[in-house]
């Protein structure tokens, strides 16, 4: 960090972090160890993503950082306030959008916003103006006087976010903001969140199990698996750690696969060559630059390639490396750590 030239980044580096978690541990009464010593910090004014499969402990972490739940061990500071010593002050400084919608279905969108604004101490003209601004901003003016239970999933989620913002918090927590939304509503929410991150000094912590979402929205992210942070960095840094790109070669003749593997393995800068049927996959540093050399040496050996593709590493590759299993696999088997007890607790 010695040759930082971006003044904003430099400033951010000197400001205290907006969120700091240190060694957070949490075990639920049922014996489930949800967090096994989680530490990370989030610079003020940035969007930080917690990425992990269902059951990784993300929601538990959010519940602790929003003062809803207490850790067994460890400490945390949010917006400069100690979670355990000043929970009431933390609550006033943060906005929370939990995984399950916190909107009251029997109240209208406007009433939901008004109630929350009042709880945070807004009143009078400032209260009305703030609520109208938010309804406008999230496209809910027309639906403002309808009970929230008549809203679509996307509208209800927008109302949720608006409620989280009503008191202009310093830190906004978004727990799985797009889970359960259809692709169109998800894209809309992404646009909205990106706009939010761009225009204010708000710090956003978002949890997600969508790799694409983390990649698009978060400036930094931590990969969480089984109650631990297994990797942390910018999406680019994490992907760069993946030693190059994936080059896939589709062979014209599957019988030539073994010979092709031998050819590629001899080339410099190429690792982990594997064949499956007629297709070869290799990890290649500077994949695009080496494609001509790959094709030339295959052709020299009399092997014909039908197609070549180069793919930049994805967070999927990152996850696979740090968590030791693919994301999809973790989604299928990883459930449990987030679910407190058997008594129908929140999940």
């Amino acid at each position, binding site marked *: 960090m010695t040759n930082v030239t971006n003044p904003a980044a430099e400033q951010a580096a000197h400001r205290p972090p907006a969120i700091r978690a240190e060694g957070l541990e949490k075990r639920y009464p049922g014996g489930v160890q949800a967090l096994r010593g989680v530490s990370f910090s989030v610079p003020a004014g940035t969007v930080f993503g917690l990425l992990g499969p269902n059951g990784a402990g993300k929601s538990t972490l959010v519940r602790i950082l929003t003062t*809803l739940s207490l850790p067994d061990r460890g400490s945390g500071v949010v917006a400069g306030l100690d979670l355990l010593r000043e929970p009431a002050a933390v609550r006033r400084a943060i906005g929370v959008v*939990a995984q399950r919608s916190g909107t009251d279905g029997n109240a209208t969108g406007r009433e939901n916003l008004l109630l929350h604004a009042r709880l945070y101490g807004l009143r009078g003209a400032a209260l009305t103006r703030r609520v109208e601004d938010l309804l406008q901003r999230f496209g809910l003016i027309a639906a403002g006087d309808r009970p929230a239970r008549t809203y679509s999933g996307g509208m209800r989620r927008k109302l949720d976010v608006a409620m989280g913002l009503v008191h202009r918090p310093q830190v906004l927590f978004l727990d799985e903001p797009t889970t359960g939304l259809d692709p169109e509503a998800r894209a809309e929410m992404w646009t909205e969140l990106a706009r939010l991150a761009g225009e204010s000094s708000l710090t956003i912590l978002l949890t997600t199990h969508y790799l694409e979402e983390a990649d698009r929205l978060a400036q930094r992210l931590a990969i969480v698996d089984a109650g631990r942070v297994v990797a942390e960095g910018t999406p680019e840094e994490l992907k760069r750690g993946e030693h190059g790109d994936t080059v896939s070669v589709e062979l014209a003749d599957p019988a030539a696969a073994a010979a092709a593997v031998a050819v590629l393995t001899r080339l410099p800068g190429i690792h982990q060559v594997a064949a499956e049927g007629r297709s070869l996959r290799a990890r290649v540093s500077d994949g695009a630059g080496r494609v001509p050399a790959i094709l030339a040496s295959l052709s020299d050996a009399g092997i014909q390639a039908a197609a070549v593709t180069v793919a930049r590493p994805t967070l999927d590759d990152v996850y696979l490396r740090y968590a030791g299993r693919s994301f999809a696999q973790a989604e299928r088997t990883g459930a449990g750590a987030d679910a407190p007890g058997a008594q129908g607790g929140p999940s």
Partner: protein
Amino acid sequence: MTVLGQSAAMTGRRLRALLRQPWYLAISLAQPVVWLLLFGQLFKRVVQIPGFGDASYVTFLTPGVVVMNALFAGTWAGMTLIEEMDGGVLDRLLASPLRPAALLAGELGYHALVVAVQSLLMIGLGVLAGARLAGGGAGMLVLVLAAALLASAVAALSNALALVLRRGESLIAASQFVALPLTFLASAFMPAGLAPGWIQAVERFNPFNWAVLAGREALAPDPSWGAAAGHLGALLALLLVAVFLTLRAFRGYRRSL
């Protein structure tokens, strides 16, 4: 925002939701009326049993049905809390500056208010049906107060149970297991003197019966205000204990998150 302001906001939220569901509102008003008329007809000739005393059964029954309505209204209170737990509303409120005490006070205020209105309606209907409530306005006030206190205390306990059980089915089963026996281990439908000795013994510890007795003592031709005040005091004490337990249950809920 002050704790009082927060409580009022919570009560207002519930009242708006109630007014927005006309069917629910209609049923919640009609149900006690049905009880009054149904029980009035069913047990009409009970007064002929020697030792009953009072002239008309509807005079005897009115306080009993008013208080029964209060008890049942209170036992359902926890269901709303479970709905809000499942929907995420509770967590959102607990992560805001709202104090659990204000949340609870708002809930209890709502139940007390709704039960008070229902009670007044039922008293009016009872009078129309021929009940002679000699205690007059002051007596009716005592009955309404007793009903509201009982409803709030039971609503608080129902909320505490909801925070512990967290499932609608379990809460309904537990509430019915307690509420129904309470209504019959009391002198709501039958004077204490006609019940077996063991029931008379149990009645003395039954908060439902305290509320019935408070109303009846204050509505008698020769009201015994002292006895009524004693029963109101016991109901208030019960409410305070219930609030204490419910606030503890909120802390337990938070620990389990």
